[in-house]
């Protein structure tokens, strides 16, 4: 298996010696949709932030596309959509996208073409000149996603991208994720919803700062003799307690 992310002995401790991630060893496959699945507070966001390099790690090492996580070389190759929308509500959709396109170092001549492509991609062409504040939560989510797609990154990291969305919109986003994966991008998608696990090619189950499983859904179900990922999760948690 060629890997996109390799994590060795990762530990993250915050103030008052509170351990968030404990001795994580993980290798994530290239070109697939990878789900980080676990309950709220399990450590998914911390793990994601460590992978994109926006968090200082206490010990261990993380390599992304063969480079140390957070290194300069990765800034055009890895994109990150945080759990918060991470967009400017007091700017229009177009102003948001143009700003982030410029921040990626894309030339002015290319900007308009990329802007239109992104708007089409997330189906927001008719909303380009509307203030983000006046959009629905699903539309805001799509603006945030569009920013993560600038410069066609090799690794797209999305932290809870479907949380709070209605099922129709969630399905639309998953179609887009699958499309991106087919085009060669690797996606890491965190979710606390076990239903979404079945849509991923590879699963990383996280609980209490530890990885309790990292394998394909088929392997996971077979190994735990379960019918659903939720059942597998419960069995794995039960075994550890």
């Amino acid at each position, binding site marked *: 298996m060629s890997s996109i992310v390799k994590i060795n002995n990762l530990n993250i401790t915050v103030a008052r010696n509170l351990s968030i991630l404990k001795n994580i060893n993980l290798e994530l496959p290239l070109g697939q949709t990878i789900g980080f699945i676990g309950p709220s507070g399990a450590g998914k966001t911390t793990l994601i932030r460590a992978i994109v390099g926006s968090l200082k790690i206490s010990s261990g090492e993380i390599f992304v596309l063969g480079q140390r996580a957070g290194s300069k070389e990765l800034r055009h190759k890895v994109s*990150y959509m945080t759990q918060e929308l991470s967009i400017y509500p*007091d700017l229009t959709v177009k102003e948001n996208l143009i700003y982030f396109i410029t921040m990626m170092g894309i030339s002015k001549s290319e900007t308009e073409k990329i802007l239109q492509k992104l708007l089409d991609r997330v189906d927001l062409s008719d909303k380009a000149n509307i203030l983000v504040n006046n959009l629905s939560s699903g539309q805001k989510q799509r603006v945030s996603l569009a920013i993560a797609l600038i410069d066609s990154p090799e690794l797209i990291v999305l932290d809870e991208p479907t949380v709070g969305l209605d099922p129709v919109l969630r399905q639309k986003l998953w179609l887009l994720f699958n499309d991106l994966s087919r085009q060669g991008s690797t996606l890491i998608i965190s979710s606390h919803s076990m239903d979404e696990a079945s849509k991923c090619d590879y699963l990383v189950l996280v609980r209490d700062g530890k990885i309790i499983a990292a394998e394909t859904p088929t392997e996971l179900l077979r190994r735990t003799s379960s019918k659903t990922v939720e059942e597998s999760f419960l069995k794995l948690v039960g075994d550890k307690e």
Partner: protein
Amino acid sequence: MSLNRTISTTKRVLSQLKHDKRTIALIFIVPPVLLTILKYVFDGQSQVFDSIAPMLLGIFPMIMMFLISSIVTLRERSSGTLSRLMTMPISKTDFIFGYALAFSLIGLFQALITSGVMLGLLRVTVLGGTIQTLIIAVIASFLGTSLGLFTSAFARSEFQAIQFMPAFIFPQLLVCGLFIARNNMAKPLQWFADIMPLSYSVDAMKQITIMSNWGHVLTKDIVIVLLFAIFALVLGSTTIHRKG
């Protein structure tokens, strides 16, 4: 550092403010209105007003830019946009100088309006002239922006950010020489005032009020305020975390 990214950040901050018309109105209208009220507070004591008004022109931009920049930067930190930006090729310097430039420009426009009202309508005499007045007002707004960027790192909410105003700015306001000459204050307060940037911003305004030519004392005051502002910007950049 990329000039394109810095200017784009400046444009973005200004566009955000452009959509917030009420804030724009408050920034540009409140200082001249306050000066006008003060004029009539000292009705019949025009000498007192003439000595205080220029000093306020060194204080208003600092206070307003401190408040606005600390809240806007706090929003940037808490909304996740800063984290997202730090995973992109933008450097911390692009980000910070983009902000500093945006708020210095706002400070310039604020100073243009306020000094226009002060020198034109309220007939205050500043021997140094309009250009020197504007230079000091812009430097004061740069200082306010830098301090706001830095202190925003210690606030968890906008409510806390506003509380930094009485904590960081009011003590400086009390000892800067606005109410009483600094050398008439108790010694410990003089020492405190000597290490506070607002004292030098107010001193610079005092200088241009009474001197028509640009003297070395004015240069010293301006350099000190600039150094404080740059120091606060450097400290501010250390509060933005990024690996690599």
